[in-house]
Every structure is written in C-alpha cells, then in structure tokens.
C-alpha cells in the first residue's frame, strides 16, 4: 500500500484529472455539479499523494512521454510546488462547495467546465519546469479566468472581463518576448539548465525585465493593478474568490521561482529595490482605496491589491539573512484562504440583502452570524492579528525588515495592518448597526455560509502550523525554505 501511494504518477493525475473532468462536465452539464465537486476532492487526495511521494523520495522529476529537456516537457515538483498545489486544492474545495449552491442550473453548466480547466492549468503551472510551458499555462489560466469573470453576463462583468483579458494578454506577450530572448542567448528554456548557464549579459537583463514586467502586470502589482478591482469586483462570488486567492498567485509563483533561480544569481538588487518600492505603494494605495469604497466586493478587491504589495516587500529583504521568503510564502497561503473566505462571505451578504453597499448592511450579524463570523475571522488574518496565518507571515517579514535595519519597509507593514483593521472594522461596524433603509432579506443556503466559515477558519488554523508547513516547503531546498524558524 505504502509502495503504491509513492509509485503512482500523482503529478500527471493532478493535471489530467481536472482536465478530463472539465470536458466531462461540458458534455454532461446535468451531472456537472456532482462530478465537479468529486473531482476537486480527488485533486486534494492526489495532492496528498504527491506530498507523501515527495516526503519519502524527495524532489519529483518526470519527462513526459520519455522526452526530456531540452526537446520535451519536464515535470518538476518540490516543496514550493507542493505548497501551491495544496493551497489550490483547499481553496478549490471551499469554492466548489459554495458554487454547488450559488449558481442556477444553467449557470452551473457553464461554470464547472471552465473552473475545472482553470484548476488543471493552475496545477500544470505549479508542476512544469521550463519558462515556455509556464507561458502556455499562464495563458490557459488567463483565458479560463477571463471566461469565468464574464459568467455573470452583465455589462459591468463583460467590461471587467474585457479589460482583464487585454491586460493578461499583454502580460503574457511581454513574458513570451523575454522567453524568446532567453532562449536565443542561452539555448534552453529549462529553468534548471538556465540557472547553470546564466551570465550577466545585457540580453539577460532585457529578457528578465520583459518577463518581470509581464508578470507584475498579471500579478496586479501597483501601478499595474488597474484591471483587478473591476474584474474581481464584478465577477460572481466564487469566481472572485478564485481570482483573488489563486490566479494572481500563479504569476507571483513564477516570479518567485525565476527570482531565486535567475534574477538573484545575476545580481538583481536594484530590481529588488524597485519591487520593494512598488510593493510599499501597493500596500498604502490599496488599503486607502479599500477604505474609500462604498461597495463591499470592490473593497475586498482593493484589499487584494494591498496584500499583493506585501508579497513584494520580500524581494528587497530576501537577499540578506532573515526569513523574508518564508514570510511572503506564509502570507501568500493565508491570504489565499482568508481572501477566498471574504469574497464568499461578501457573496452571501449580496445574496441576502440584494445589494452590497457597506453602509446599508443593516444588522446582518444577527441574521447571518456564520457569514459575518467568517468575514471577521478572515479579517483577523488579513490584519495580521495572532494566532492567524497572516500574523506569522507579517511577523516574519517585519522581524526580517527590523533585523536588516529597513525601517521604511517595517513602517509600511505596520501602517498597512492598521489600515486593514480600519477597513475590516468599518464593514463589521455597519454589520452591527441598523441601516436607514431596511430591505427584505433572501435566505442564504447553509452550505454557502459554511464554505466561507471553513476557509476563514483555515486561515486562522494556519497560524498554528508554521513548523510542519515550512518542513514540507523545504523539500528540494528552495530559497532555504526548510531553515529552522526563530
């Protein structure tokens, strides 16, 4: 039994299973809901299988069809891939539970195939090891994410989706141009081979600059976040959850991998500084915009802009001693859980009251206690209060910034948390008080409430799992991830 679990090609199952299930859902929309949920559970099990495999045998490598690099496609999984796959599967379960009750039968027939395609593309992204196939996965993610955004079919949703599509295509094209230059200069697109060959040539800087620009456009780092609030704010709730929790993290994951393997060895200090400045601006600007929003989902979307900024604060800190990468990764994972919970809770409030104006929430805390509880728990993690996962991430980043004497970055981190507290409590405050304009509530299915609660609880529980998580992420030794914590 033990042998079987570690022998099965889990990585391939992780890509093929959601792809096949997505096609099946397209052909048979009647059973799409059940089939979709079942296959997302299977994806979680396969991720566990891959985890056991990595824990017993170390880093996983596979040449598809027996064709290795440079001609074929190589799959590669280390602790970082595992962590990303795990969080994708967990958020996927929560969102799938929610979506089963959220969509009408007709919408569900469109949602499930595209969502499963997106899941397959995300899993593929975390498992391939060459810059060109990363491009292909990025495009697959972009196209399915845009289709999901447009699902609501309103003018706002379509305009948001169109803006998102143009931004994401531009980002991928810039990235592809960088890939072309890399291949021409170093004769390979395999990341491990490239890492051994890179030398600081002008062509390398041009290539990395183009790829970096494309990726930060897709990750919506300030000031390239212009497409995010409209797309994330106008999509259906489960889609917003997936977009904010997982899709923007996909391009960040590529940037992180390329940074450690290619940018940092080539001496990327000035680029790191630039990322730090843009990240700080994103934290402040995103938080202030979140405070100013009248609509709940737009507020949550701007909060994503701010939290993405935090991830980029690790780049100027990562080169020296400290725990910057661990902190950023922990923030990434806990933000995925907390933000998906927040969007799902916002979806419940929208369904319940028929509107999402923050000022008119009208005592929802008495009438939807589970949903408001989920929103509050997710808010605790976003603010970075103990014992949540967001606390561990922010604390590691803050400690690293202080130990390196980076007072400005530390100040930005603290200010961001204070502003986050302000925008979360603003919503909670209105949830407790009576609104001037009462409205007739519509019942929210219990399943939709519990999906949000489970994800939010996950973001809190994450705060207690730091040691085992970093041990897992340390498989393969990516960026010294397995190092013991302070």
């Amino acid at each position: 039994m033990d042998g079987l679990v570690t022998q099965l090609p889990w990585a391939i199952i992780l890509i093929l299973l959601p792809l096949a299930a997505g096609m099946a859902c397209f052909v048979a929309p009647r059973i799409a809901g059940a089939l979709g949920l079942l296959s997302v559970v299977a994806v979680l099990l396969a991720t566990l299988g891959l985890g056991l495999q990595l824990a017993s045998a170390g880093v996983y490598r596979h040449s598809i069809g027996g064709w290795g690099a440079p001609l074929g496609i190589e799959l590669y999984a280390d602790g970082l891939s595992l962590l990303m796959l795990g969080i994708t599967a967990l958020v996927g379960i929560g969102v799938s539970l929610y979506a089963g009750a959220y969509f009408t039968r007709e919408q569900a027939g469109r949602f499930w195939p595209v969502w499963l395609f997106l899941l397959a593309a995300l899993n593929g992204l975390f498992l391939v090891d060459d810059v060109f196939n990363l491009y292909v996965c990025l495009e697959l993610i972009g196209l399915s994410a845009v289709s999901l955004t447009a699902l609501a079919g309103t003018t706002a949703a379509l305009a948001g989706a169109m803006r998102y599509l143009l931004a994401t295509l531009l980002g991928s094209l810039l990235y592809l141009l960088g890939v072309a230059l890399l291949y021409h200069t170093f004769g390979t697109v395999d990341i491990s081979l490239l890492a051994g060959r890179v030398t600081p040539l002008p062509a390398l800087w041009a290539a990395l600059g183009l790829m970096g620009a494309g990726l930060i456009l897709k990750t919506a780092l300030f000031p390239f976040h212009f497409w995010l609030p409209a797309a994330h704010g106008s999509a259906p709730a489960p889609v917003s959850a997936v977009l904010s929790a997982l899709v923007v993290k996909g391009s960040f994951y590529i940037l992180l991998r390329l940074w450690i393997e290619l940018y940092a060895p080539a001496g990327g200090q000035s680029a790191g500084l630039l990322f730090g400045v843009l990240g700080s601006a994103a934290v402040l600007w995103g938080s202030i915009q979140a405070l100013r929003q009248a609509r709940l989902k737009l507020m949550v979307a701007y909060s994503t802009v701010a939290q993405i900024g935090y991830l980029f604060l690790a780049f100027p800190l990562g080169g020296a001693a400290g725990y910057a990468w661990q902190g950023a990764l922990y923030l990434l994972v806990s933000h995925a859980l907390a933000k998906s919970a927040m969007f799902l809770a916002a979806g419940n409030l929208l369904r319940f009251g028929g509107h999402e104006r923050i000022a008119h929430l009208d005592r929802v805390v008495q009438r939807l206690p589970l949903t408001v509880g989920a929103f509050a728990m997710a808010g605790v993690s976003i603010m970075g209060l103990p014992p949540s996962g967001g606390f561990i991430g922010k604390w590691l980043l803050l400690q690293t910034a202080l130990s390196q004497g980076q007072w400005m970055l530390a100040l930005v981190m603290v200010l961001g948390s204070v502003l986050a507290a302000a925008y979360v409590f603003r919503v909670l405050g209105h949830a407790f008080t009576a609104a001037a304009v009462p409205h007739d509530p519509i019942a929210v299915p219990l399943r939709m409430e519990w999906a949000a609660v489970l994800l939010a609880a996950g973001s809190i529980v994450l705060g207690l799992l730091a040691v085992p998580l970093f041990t897992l992420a340390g498989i393969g030794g990516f960026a010294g991830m397995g190092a013991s914590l302070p």
Partner: protein
Amino acid sequence: MTAADLYALAGVGLVGLGLYALIVHAHLLRKILAINVTGSGIFLVLVGLSGTGPDAIPQAMVITGIVVAVSATALALALMLRLTALSGQAELPQDPDDAH
C-alpha cells in the same frame, strides 16, 4: 547583418507598433488587432533569432503560440460582440469603478 537578423528586427518593430496601437486606440477591435500584431512580432523574433539552422524548438514554440493566440482572439472577439450588443459601443467604459 543576415536576413535572419532583419526578420528579428522587423519583429521588434511589429511589437512596438502593436504596443503603441494597444495604448492609443479606444476601439476594442483595434485593441484586439494590436494584440495580434504584437504576438506576430514576437513569433517573428523567435524564428528570426534562431537563424536558418535546423533548430526545431523555436518553431515548436511559435506553433504553440499561434494556437494560443487564435484561442485568445476568439475569446476576445466573442466578449467584444457581447459587450457591444449590451452597451451599444465597442469601447471600454472610462472609469473601471463606474462600470455598474
């Protein structure tokens, strides 16, 4: 300068033209065309830089890239048609936050 270099330079020129058009034009069809011109420019760079040698990898990349570009264009056109049918204009609203 070889013919291959010329192709690569022409590719870079196309990328520049495409990016310019993407930013300047408001009409969505022009934006979609601009994305396509940029993509073609990048494909030309890929093939041009590899020269005339027997290197199959850039060609494989370009073929994959074309498939992606066709799907992306199809999706973009479908979105544009639907948006035009609903809002009566083939342009994006000015302020993204006002789109409701």
